[in-house]
Every structure is written in structure tokens, then in C-alpha cells.
């Protein structure tokens, strides 16, 4: 039942404006692939191209190796969950779920059997005769999911399905979506702008920027080895600290604007002397005080955000750059502190191209 989805050079332009530029992507059977990006990056367009609601300007969509690009949405055997649920307002919960099955010519008995199963799975059993307007946001979301599930499609498409829910409900539904998707084992494409949703749901994560898929990888790899400056800044909250620097002559270290030299722990980077770099470090990797192994930077604490389990400190360096820290222990009492940027946690990017620079 579960299918393998492949996108080959999928592009879309509206008039002269290119929205999507040759996106390649492969979702293995049963995978939850999450597409994340800022609004306007083309992630919804990508989903709609897969659904068949838009026609691509170039490229192909394959399902289990079969080219389905010319097919209309109904014959693609996919189900979509929309951001605003798109329930049929004049139909009961039962009819909302049954509609697609009726159009496919299933018998009454089959329909009520399938709808009943889906309703049980989603805890909608008692609500089947209600109309959508009599339901809460979370319940509507469930019905929208139910409508997708009963069809037993080969692919689920989720278009920001949780963004209309309040924070607490969003968390609960997120867990539920993941659980359902795992137990059904249906390949899924999930679009969101919420990076926490993206990180927690994804088997594979696609970060999109201006119509391009800039990095496709498992979520932790994206977090640990962002491929570009954009990905580094986009994933993670608070975002990765990025400091301007230059490459020293032999390529073994970066020189910050204040003159401090940060040696690389993992090897030398090739590049001209004085190449403009951006050096990144996650807030949780910045140390306060600590060992003398790496050089210390004087910093002034500007803001403390106690979150209970951890504290976020926003500090200003002498050069004026802002650095955020995530501390799990007791935060320092004074506002004048010394921070260290451990070499093994540094991310190095070419400032001009935005690409990650790895040793070698």
C-alpha cells in the first residue's frame, strides 16, 4: 500500500516568476518527509504539484516508478489534509469522510465499515452525526485526518495542518499524526513553517529556500551539519550564533573581527588568505568560563530568559555582535562574563556563497 515518491527536476513558474526551481526529492515507502521553509519559499506549491492541483512547468512526479505527472488529482490515489481543514460544511462528519468513498463507488456496508474504523482510530465515534461547525478546532482537524485515512491512499499530503490550532493542541495533534502515520505506514509529505514540528515529525527533512531544496537529510543531520548559512540560521531556536570572520593564511583557523583567532578542531579549510567567513555555533555549545583550552571572549549579559529547565542568555560582545547561550545549569550571577566557543562545535561557512566549508 505504501508507495515510493520521486520528484525529478520539478519546477513551477507563474508567468515569469519562478516559484520552484528543479526540485529533486525521493521519499522511501513509509517515510514521513517534512518540507520546511519560510513563507513564500514554494513549499506549498511543491505539495500542490505532487497532489496534481497545479501543473508543473517542468519535471516529473513518480509514484512507485510510474510517471503520474499528467494525471488529475482524483486518479493519483493521494489524500490531502488542508491548513483550514476544508471540511464540507453542509455535511455531517460521517458524510465528510464517506464522500470520497461514495464517489469511488464503494458499497454502503464497505463505507460504514471504513468510516467506522477511521472514526474509532481518531476518537470521532460519538461525533459522526455532527456538522463541522459544531466541532472544536481539534475535532475538525481530526475529521480532516479521518477523511484522508478512510481513503487508504498511497500518499498523505499535509499542508500546514496544525497551524490553526493553539499551542497545546498542536503538540497533542503532532504526536497523534506521527503515531497514526507510523502505524498506517503510509508515505507522507508534510509541509510546515514550524521547525519544531519539522524536527520532531520528519524521517527526512527538506529545507527550502526561495524555490530550491537547499538541504535534504535526516533532521538531526540538518541540525548538526547545516549545509548552508540559511539552513543554519533557520533551524534551531534560538538560532545558531553567526559571527563574521576571515580565514587565516594556512586555513587552520578563523580570525574574528575583534582579532581573536579560533583554531579549527577538525582540519584546515582550503581558501585564500582573508577569505570572508561566517563562523557559527549553537547556543547550547557556547560555554561560560570553562577550561582554558580555547580563548575567552568578554561579554555583557543583555537579557536573561529563564525557561525552567534551562536559561537563555543574550550577550553582547565587545565588537557589538549579539550571542545567545543556552545554559542548563545555574546561570552566572554577574552580567560581565567570559564566554568560550569550543573549537569542536564550530560551523564554518563561506560568507559570499553561504555554503558550508568542511575540512579538506
Amino acid at each position: 500500500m505504501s508507495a515510493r515518491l520521486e520528484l525529478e527536476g520539478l519546477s513551477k513558474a507563474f508567468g515569469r516568476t519562478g516559484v520552484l526551481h528543479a526540485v529533486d526529492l525521493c521519499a522511501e515507502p513509509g517515510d514521513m518527509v517534512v518540507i520546511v521553509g519560510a513563507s513564500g519559499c514554494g513549499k506549498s506549491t511543491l505539495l500542490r504539484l505532487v497532489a496534481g492541483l497545479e501543473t508543473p512547468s517542468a519535471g516529473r512526479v513518480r509514484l512507485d516508478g510510474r510517471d503520474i505527472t499528467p494525471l488529475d488529482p482524483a486518479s493519483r490515489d493521494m489524500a490531502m489534509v488542508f491548513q483550514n481543514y476544508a471540511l464540507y460544511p453542509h455535511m455531517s462528519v460521517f458524510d465528510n469522510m464517506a464522500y470520497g468513498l461514495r464517489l469511488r463507488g464503494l458499497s454502503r456496508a464497505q463505507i460504514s465499515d471504513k468510516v467506522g474504523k477511521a472514526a474509532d482510530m481518531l476518537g470521532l465515534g460519538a461525533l459522526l452525526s455532527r456538522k463541522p461547525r459544531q466541532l472544536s478546532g481539534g475535532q475538525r482537524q481530526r475529521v480532516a485526518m479521518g477523511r484522508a485515512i478512510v481513503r487508504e491512499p498511497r500518499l498523505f499530503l499535509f499542508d500546514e495542518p496544525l497551524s490553526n490550532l493553539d499551542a497545546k493542541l498542536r503538540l497533542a495533534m503532532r504526536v497523534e499524526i506521527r503515531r497514526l502515520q507510523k502505524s498506517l505506514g503510509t508515505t507522507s509529505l508534510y509541509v510546515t513553517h514550524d521547525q519544531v514540528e519539522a524536527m520532531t515529525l520528519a524521517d527526512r527533512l527538506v529545507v527550502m529556500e526561495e524555490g530550491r531544496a537547499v538541504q535534504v537529510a535526516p533532521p538531526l543531520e540538518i541540525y548538526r551539519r547545516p549545509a548552508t548559512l540559511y539552513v543554519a540560521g533557520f533551524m534551531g531556536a534560538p538560532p545558531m550564533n553567526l559571527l563574521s570572520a576571515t580565514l587565516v593564511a594556512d586555513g587552520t583557523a578563523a580570525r574574528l573581527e575583534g582579532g581573536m583567532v579560533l583554531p579549527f578542531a577538525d582540519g584546515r579549510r582550503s581558501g585564500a588568505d582573508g577569505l570572508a567567513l561566517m563562523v557559527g555555533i549553537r547556543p547550547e555549545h557556547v560555554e561560560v568560563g570553562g577550561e582554558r583550552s580555547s580563548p575567552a571572549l568578554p561579554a555583557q549579559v543583555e537579557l536573561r530568559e529563564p525557561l525552567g529547565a534551562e536559561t537563555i542568555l543574550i550577550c553582547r560582545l565587545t565588537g557589538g555582535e549579539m550571542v545567545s547561550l543556552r545554559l542548563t545549569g545555574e546561570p552566572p550571577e554577574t552580567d560581565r562574563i567570559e564566554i568560550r566557543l569550543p573549537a569542536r562545535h564550530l560551523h564554518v561557512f563561506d560568507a559570499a556563497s553561504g555554503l558550508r566549508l568542511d575540512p579538506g
Partner: protein
Amino acid sequence: MTPSRLLTHGMLLVGVLLFFLPVWLVFAASTQDASALSRGEISILPRLEGFGIYWQVLTGTGAGAQQGAVWRMLGVSFAMALAIAGGKLVVSVLAAYAVAFFRFPLRLVCFWVIFLTLMLPVEVRIMPTFELVADFGLIDSFGGLVLPLVASATATLLYRQTFLLLPDELVEAARMDGAGPLRFLRDMALPLSATNTAALFVILFVYGWNQYLWPLIAVTDTNLQTIMVGIVRMIGTEGQTYWNRVMATAMLALVPPVLVVLVMQRWFVKGLAEGST
């Protein structure tokens, strides 16, 4: 009750009286003696023994019944108004559906041409319309009575607006569920604009019911005489006008549209309550 509420109710009462008084006068006059009425003597109180005029008018009996039985005119008018309202709804729904949901060449041109016909009611185009209907051999037929009045820009515009308000996702969800254009029209667009349909039906029915000029020239056969034409023909054609008959016919002419409003009102109030999410 606060003074402002008293004032509101007072004004409403004045309004009700203003509208009700003429109707009451017609009703009172319909029960008076014909000769008394033609002398200009009109009582504000109905005369009980005059009620029999309604039966006479309906069945076309008694003095001054040259125009025939009114039940027949009521029937013709009702059928005509129903056909006009129904026809207008069907034509407009299809036109609006096309303009709102499909991309085809000259879509906007089509829309504006429909829009422009608002400025061409029957009265303006009556000569060419008559010519056309005559060429089709439809004079003195029910089709000829109804067809020229069936196209409606107003209803098309209203349906278009209603359809445009349906969210795109709804259309897309239905497409993914496998609903083709006609399915979507039947299962989504029509049920979701039911309130609109009910309100339009009332307006269009009353419009059809009130038609005078076109039925007057398109039909000479008394079997196809509408009640509006009938009333006018009762007045002073030859000799004496039986004003009590005229008034009684006018009262009877009020009944069907009022019933339609009362029945449909239920529907669209229900629709309004259900439509709000």
C-alpha cells in the same frame, strides 16, 4: 420600556399602518356594492354580505365577469412566475458556475456582457424581442410568455459572488476526493448556496408574478391571460367597471406571492443560521 424603545416601536407601527392601510382599503372596497363604489362611496369597514364576490370572481360568475374566471388567471400567473423563477435560477447557476470556476478564453468578456444586459430589461428591447418571439412562432404560447424573461444578470451576479466566497481548499478537497465539475456543482456549490437560492427564488417569483407589459403584448389568447393583465382589462373596457370585482381580484393576486415569501422565509432563515460557522 425605555423611551427610545417606545420611539422605535412607534415608528415601526406607523410604518406598518402606512403599508397596511391601502391593502385594507382594497379589501374593504372589494366587499362593497359595485354601484356604491362607482359613486365614490367607500366604507372603511368590510360589508359581510359582500364576501360572496370572491367566489364569483374566482369562478367568473355574476355581473361583470367578461374576463372569465380568476382562478384560471391565477393558475397562468403562478405557472409563469414559477417557470420564470425556475428558469432564471437554472440559467444563472450554470452561467455563474462557468464564470466563477472555469478558466476559458474571453471569460471576463462573457462576464461583462452578462453584466451589461442588466441595462436591457424587457421594456427596452420589447420590439426586437417581440419580433424574435414572433419569428419563432411562440406568440400566444406559454413558452413565448416565459422564455424572453428567463435570462437574468442579477441572479448570475449574485451566484457568482456566492461561488467566489467558497474557499479554494474546498474545491481542491472535493477534487482530491474525486468530484468532477458536475458533482461539485450538485454536491457542494448548490447545497452551499441554498440560502442564496431561496432568497433569489422569492425575488424572482415576485418579479415574474408582477410582469405586465410582456404578457400584455405576447398573449392575446384569454386562456393564457395572466392576472395582472386580467385586472387591467376589467377596468373600464366597455361600459361599467365593477370595482368590487377589480378589488377582489387585486386581493386574490396578493395571495400567492405572500405565500411564497412566507414559505421561503423559513428556508432562508434556516439557511442563514446553518451557514454561519
